[in-house]
């Protein structure tokens, strides 16, 4: 059985509130899709995503695997952007944990292992 991977451009999320973004991601992931988002989630959005995921955990949907790869807020400008609720460029990989076995982060790349269990 094939595994579906969807690449989502950042424009899909522009103008969406946190709840909408999280609902969008969860709806897709619960339909056994692995998403590569052209955006990093803010810490509050990541927190909300984990919280909402827990509300949907069942025998068939045990949860998600997620990893973000983006600019670190190291300089003053980046920290200010983050403080004001903004986000830096990057991407996020998220998928159902019954498909995505592991997402590993290196300094230069993200690696994803997926298979039907």
């Amino acid at each position, binding site marked *: 059985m094939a595994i579906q991977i969807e690449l989502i451009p950042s424009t899909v999320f522009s103008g969406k*509130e*946190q709840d909408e973004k999280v609902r969008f991601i969860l709806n897709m992931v619960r339909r056994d899709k692995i998403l590569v988002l052209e955006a990093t989630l*803010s*810490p*509050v959005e*990541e*927190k909300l995503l*984990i*919280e909402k*995921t*827990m*509300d949907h*955990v069942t*025998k068939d949907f*045990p*949860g*998600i*695997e*997620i*990893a*973000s790869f983006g600019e670190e807020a190291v300089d003053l400008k980046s920290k200010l952007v*983050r*403080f*004001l*609720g903004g986000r830096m460029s990057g991407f996020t990989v998220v998928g159902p*944990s*019954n498909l995505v076995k592991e*997402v*590993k*982060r290196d300094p230069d790349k993200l690696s994803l292992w997926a298979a039907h269990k």
Partner: protein
Amino acid sequence: MFFNLSHLIFRAKQGGVALLHGAVQFIQDIPWIFYIPEKMQMPIGNFIKWFNALFNGFFKKKKTFSLGLYGNPNVGKTSIANRISLDWTGTEVGVVSEIPHETRTVQKKERISLRVDGREITMNLLDMPGIATKVDYRDFLKYGLSQAESQQRAKEATKGIVEAIKWLDNVDVALVVMDATQDPYTQVNITILGNLEARSIPIIIVANKIDLKKAKPEKIREAFPQHEVVEISALTGENIEKLYKTIAYNT
């Protein structure tokens, strides 16, 4: 007439904070006049926190603070909580188990007094359930639990994770516990740290299990160089005094 300068400053500070809180509350209570977009709620919250922290730092010492233990499941949060509680109160906080998600509700130990280098601090210790992005009941079967027990444990674990997440905004200081034998760069650690940083909550990273041969606490330092890392073994008590000093000087 005699004026007490510190009293005047204190009253001014109280008035300033009250005024700011009142203004924000007023704006939030009348959303049809002043609508605050969701994106701006966090910056306003940050500003209030910063404003309070600034004035509290100058003029006021908080008597009791809450110390939350956060991290992935099975990194040793309850072992650390027990160690702290045993050292200062003589009693434990919770049960330790090799089965993940043993702590499924927030365990509290109130008014623990620490005395370090002549400083006395009083804290409420909060041992949080481990935060995870998935809870698969099948993982518990490997530890000999029955199907029904495993499913019940999974159900309780998901609730515990939600409870721990909700508490992220309500602790005064956070110990983010990491297993020094594991890769520290997990999404859960990043999410916990990101949220605490956004709220300007003081963070101490605890690299636990340094008694194990596989432990590489230097990897934790490399992954999160912006934070103070204290290497300990909750099992043997190694370096626990250093952790107490770090808590005392970060509050």
